């Protein structure tokens, strides 16, 4: 398979931009569940980034662990945390 990485630098920039947006949103959103879901979206963009860098194994792990299971676990933990507490 031939792949010219420089061909798709716009794609690269788009994914990086979305990652930054997701990271800032995850920190600044009020609700814990919303933050958890946005973290999952961040993981998904990381997965796309790995795929773009041709590291398919890492991308697969990221999609399975980061985007799927850890989001569920974070949401499951968030239900016990008081969302109105300081910090």
């Amino acid at each position, binding site marked *: 398979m031939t792949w010219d990485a420089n061909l798709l630098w716009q794609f690269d920039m788009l994914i990086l931009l979305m990652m930054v947006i997701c990271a800032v949103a995850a920190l600044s959103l009020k609700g814990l*569940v919303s933050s958890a879901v946005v973290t999952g979206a961040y993981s998904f963009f990381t997965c796309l980034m790995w795929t773009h860098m041709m590291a398919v*194994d890492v991308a697969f792990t990221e999609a399975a662990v980061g985007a799927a299971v850890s989001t*569920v*676990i974070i949401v*499951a933990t968030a239900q016990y945390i008081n969302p109105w507490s300081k910090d």
Partner: protein
Amino acid sequence: MKPFARIILFLCAVMMLTATVDLPDWADPGSPASTHLSPGFIEQGYHETATPNVVTAVLADYRSYDTLFESVVVFAASLVVMLVLRRTSTGTSRIKHFRPKREGRDTILRGAAQSIIPVMQIFALYVLFHGHYSPGGGFQGGVIFGASFILLSLCYSLKFAMQRFKEKMVLICCACGALLYAGIGAVCLAMGWNFLGYAGLAGLLGVTDVMARSHGILAVEAGVGITVMAVMVSLYYDLASGGDMEEGL
């Protein structure tokens, strides 16, 4: 507190970005990592292990100590979560801030789960056992298999999932996976090779050294898969129920 945290965050970002400049370029053939080790793995890997996927060969054969202790770390993480959270049910449920009161799950979710979960489990096994030829392996297959139980618990209830896959069984699976991995290494040691030198299995299996390494990778990946699957389910059971195993997400 807030401005102070922001300053620290900003400083960390500046330090990391400064350090990024010194890293070699992406896919740079002249970087130290790809001048010494990578050519050896890429050129010798298939002839030494009969595994077309170099990542699997490196992960489970050349760097098998690394993977062994990764799975042990995952196992220890589930044990610690259980130690901190697990408690006997006292009847009083903890405060749940995001939980609506609901009686039961509906038919649509159950039907969709019924049709998706078997496919997921078969796909997980495919990922695990096809790791020699395609992306995938123990970690990914195990996580997908564990996610199928999490889906069962989400679409039915925690009790229903725990009847199918009991907590005791989960812990046994946790330990058995890591034990399988270390046991393969110990068998190799007993056959007179290095710990986790899979060529030692050649005499037992009756195959050549190269095929023995391939089969050893498969067995080890199965161990990692069992551990990771059980750990994911155990983490979900503990965290979603708050430790009393009464009621999940």
